[in-house]
């Protein structure tokens, strides 16, 4: 009994920091619709600022004052980010801002390294709260009790702010219908900035308040972000109470998971999230999503069309140049282009389901990884000929996508995205933990292509053929009757259904198709590298693809390919520099601000303006 109570108390104490960070993210999302990947970075800044302040300000007052000051300072940093980076791109397509926040992550990572150095910082203990209290014979740290006591106050303060003040009324109104709020004369820009301040300050507080239980290090930004997303989704996007209940739920369950199922530490919260979303598709306290359900914000989309003569000619030229690369390029340039091509195919498969199908997947890497792992497992355990393994990889990836899709397509919008994330995380933890079969983190090595493909040049042509075929195939599907049906389900599910389209099935097939193509990319990858590791299906891999699709232009056909080429190419060059992440982050932010429709979308607009686009139209 004593242990049980102590375990619950541990869970409640753990929930404190998680709740602070998650409620901030939830508020920001609710009002601004921004999925703020950089929220973990704000949490990290809170921890570093807190450690620095606590070293300077001694005693009780210094300790608690430092925590409050950290919140304030990080809130102001959030304001700077909002004004400089996000404000210019509010009019961009939905979710585009997440690319900008990704740039912010990179910038903050390098700045934190510059300012605070590489060594981990241990957080100071809270003065006067360093020992334990015996509850039913079990030791419970005093600081845990302090955290448990503080959290309800913060929850109450937020509740009061949101339900009892004018600001709160505006925030709630904006969460429900921000256009209406704007129409009623509220200055949205400052409302957004204010909410961003509040959300960032909460993240900063969270970072500072956890210091006595941990410290500050350079990996904590990415380490917390997935847990925070899970909490926000379980609680319901935009709901503070939901975030509170969800962080308690996750933290307490985690404590019992550790005690009774120690191997579960990686996957437990994703299982919980998947279950909650399957039962309550909008989280515990979430409302059905309004935005983007019928019609879209911003200017109307330009319908995608097959390339005209000029486009085809240019593509032909590009292919010719690529085909001639082995003649004039070095062996390394082929290796580099293989990498870029594979990434292009992966991005194109995500773009297919995202732009054409309107289904934003946050877990697309699971199919890429599935392709790679199926091929690698077949080679390792069944001595399958490479050609057969290569063929079976996309089929298996497609089948897995069928299963995952069956669960996911019941949801839409961000909830769909989060459920795909949950499934990809399940897949990742499966390969990560199943040591005997997948080799766990040490992966599968010595997966090489057959002799006739073992040369760099022959594998280069192999990759070129399959990537070109895959991308052309996807483009072809977009313009086929199935593609039209898929586009109809994206633009208006209701109207599509009224015209006799089986919306679910069309989306389902589209999802599986995208998964299968991602599997091709994965199989190409594994044979080019000779090894595969779980990080090929990690969240960050999914986000890489997501970012290039948005960066290239989500409302275009070639955005993913162009974005992937741009990002891979630039990274290969920048990574040679000392502070490459800083430069890369700034570059991404610049591109986002200059080209809010993505690279291709913006180029097309420019071309239209100077008359190039119309010419092409006339020539058709």
């Amino acid at each position, binding site marked *: 009994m004593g*242990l049980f109570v102590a375990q619950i108390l541990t869970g409640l*104490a*753990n929930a404190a920091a998680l709740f602070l960070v998650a409620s901030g993210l939830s508020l920001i999302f609710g009002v601004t619709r921004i999925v703020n990947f950089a929220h973990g970075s704000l949490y990290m800044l809170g921890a570093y600022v807190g450690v620095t302040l606590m070293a300077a300000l001694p005693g009780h007052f210094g300790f608690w004052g430092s925590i409050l000051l950290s919140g304030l300072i990080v809130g102001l940093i959030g304001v700077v980010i909002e004004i400089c980076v996000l404000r210019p791109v509010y009019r961009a397509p939905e979710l585009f801002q997440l690319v900008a926040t990704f740039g912010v992550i990179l910038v903050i990572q*390098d700045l934190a*390294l510059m300012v605070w150095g*590489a*060594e*981990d910082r*241990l957080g100071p*203990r809270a003065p006067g709260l360093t*020992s*334990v209290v015996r509850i039913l014979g*079990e030791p419970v*740290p005093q600081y*845990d009790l302090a955290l448990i006591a503080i959290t309800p106050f913060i929850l109450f303060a937020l509740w009061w702010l949101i339900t009892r003040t004018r600001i709160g009324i505006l925030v709630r109104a904006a969460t429900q219908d921000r256009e209406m709020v704007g129409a009623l004369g509220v200055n949205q820009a400052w409302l957004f900035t204010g909410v961003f301040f509040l959300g960032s300050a909460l993240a900063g507080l969270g970072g500072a308040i956890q210091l006595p*239980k*941990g*410290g500050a*290090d*350079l*990996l904590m930004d990415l380490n917390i972000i997935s847990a925070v997303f899970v909490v926000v989704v379980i609680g319901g996007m935009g709901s503070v109470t939901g975030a509170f209940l969800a962080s308690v739920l996750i*933290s307490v369950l985690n*404590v019992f998971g*550790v*005690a009774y199922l*120690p*191997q579960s*530490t*990686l996957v437990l919260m994703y299982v919980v999230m998947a279950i909650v979303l399957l039962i309550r598709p909008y989280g515990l306290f979430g409302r059905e999503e309004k935005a983007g359900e019928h019609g879209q914000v911003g200017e109307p989309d330009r319908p995608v069309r097959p390339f005209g003569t000029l486009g085809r000619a240019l593509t032909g030229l*590009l292919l010719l140049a690529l085909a001639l690369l082995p003649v004039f*390029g*070095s*062996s*390394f340039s082929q290796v*580099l*282009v293989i*990498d870029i091509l594979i990434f292009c195919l992966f991005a194109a498969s995500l773009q297919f389901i995202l732009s054409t199908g309107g289904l934003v997947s946050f877990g697309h890497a699971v199919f890429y990884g599935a392709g790679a792992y199926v091929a690698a497992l077949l080679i390792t355990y069944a001595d399958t000929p490479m050609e057969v393994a290569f063929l079976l990889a996309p089929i298996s990836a497609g089948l897995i996508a069928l299963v995952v899709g069956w669960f996911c397509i019941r949801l839409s919008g961000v909830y769909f995205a989060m459920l795909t994330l949950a499934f990809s995380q399940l897949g990742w933890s499966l390969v*990560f933990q199943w*040591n005997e079969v997948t*080799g*766990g*983190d*040490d*992966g599968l*090595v*010595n997966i090489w292509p057959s002799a006739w493909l*073992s040369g760099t040049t022959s594998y280069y042509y192999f990759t070129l053929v399959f990537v070109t075929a895959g991308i052309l195939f996807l483009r072809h599907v977009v313009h086929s009757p199935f593609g039209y049906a898929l586009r109809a389900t994206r633009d208006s599910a209701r109207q599509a259904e009224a015209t006799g389209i089986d919306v679910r099935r069309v989306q389902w097939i589209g999802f599986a198709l995208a998964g299968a193509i991602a599997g091709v990319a994965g199989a190409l990858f594994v044979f080019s*590298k*000779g*090894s595969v*590791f779980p*990080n090929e299906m990690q969240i960050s891999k999914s986000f890489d693809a997501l970012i290039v699709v948005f960066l290239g232009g989500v409302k275009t056909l070639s955005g993913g*390919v162009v974005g992937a*080429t*741009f990002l891979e*190419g630039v990274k*290969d*060059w920048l*990574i*040679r520099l000392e502070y490459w992440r800083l430069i890369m982050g700034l570059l991404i932010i610049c591109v986002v601000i200059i080209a809010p429709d993505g690279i291709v979308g913006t180029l097309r607009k420019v071309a239209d303006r100077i008359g190039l686009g119309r010419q092409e139209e006339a020539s058709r």
Partner: protein
Amino acid sequence: MKSLKTWTAAAVALLSASTAALAADAIKIGEINHYKRMAAFAEPYKKGIELALKEVNAAGGVLGRPLEFIFRDDDGKPGDAVKIAEELMTRDGVVMLTGTILSNVGLAISSYAGEKGYIYLASEPLADDLVWKSGNPYTFRLRTSTYVQAAILAEQAAKTDAIRYATIAPNYAYGTAAVAAFKESLTRLKPEVEFVTEQWPALFKIDAGAEVQALEASKPDAIYNVTFGTDLQKFVREGTTRGLFEGRTVYGLLTGEPEYLEPLGAEAPEGWIVTGYPWYGFTSGPEKVFVDSYMAAFPGETPKIGSIVGYMTVQSIAALIEKAGSTETPALLEAFKDLTLDTPMGEVTYRALDHQSTMGAYLGVTAVQDGQGVMVDWSFKDPTPYMPSEDEIRAMRPAK
């Protein structure tokens, strides 16, 4: 898109051309690491390399030519590391590859090196598979193997009357291997031991309070710890606060390495039996010389385990090329067989048997002195007696 690719290619070509022109006659080594992703570990390692390079080149270089390292960041991604390996070998003209801390990146480079016939000296990765289960003729490893360090701790554990053991290790390949090695060695030495619980926190995401409660609930006599970095900090703090370590011996794999002990400051646990690197305890000999010259070269810095590994990496490569008398791969491969050199940690041999170096380990007990965690009563352990037998190793290594 096309023009972009050409631009990038042109920029890359320009960049590598200019570096090539600068040091035309230097012998170049490709060093791949996670300088940003694992900055806390990679920075001391890089400093160790820089110090050794300065010394080697001041003494006239190798084969009369200066030795040069090309440092490349792989962002901690195995796929990127493989690409960089290819670029270093084919475009930058490096003689061989070295580097990496993360096991999976090391394994990826090793597999690629084996396929392409490039020599790879895995300096820091902890996975024993590099030289054993996934070993190949082109891969060599410097750092003391995880198996040996676990066996050294198990030998100490077997001397006590503790029977009930609990383990805590990060939930990934290194953690599982480290626990398996400890269990195997300890059970062999003392069959009556019992492992009452195994805890597997996610790497760098430990829920320390819950882990400590779970360990406490199993009432072990002793605890075997493999967590490191921020996980270790949280574990130690919760464990100390909640009294988990009172009356129990804790065995800490790598816990004594300055990388992990230093951030704990005065809160470092006392009385743990650990492997590590007690640089502050050296009074004479080559060990001390290294520490002094490191601190002279980088004022305000103290050596870490990464520093000494980086230093010995350069020493190994310099000795290798001198012995081979050439920078051609076949000559280097031949010279690597039982290559012996003197290092700050004594004589080290790259065994022809499994390509593993005989770099040893320091065993000691943790204590707090002047507000710093240190290792006391330490001794140096030769790894050879703790290695699996030659037959066992031959059985593990893939037939060639």
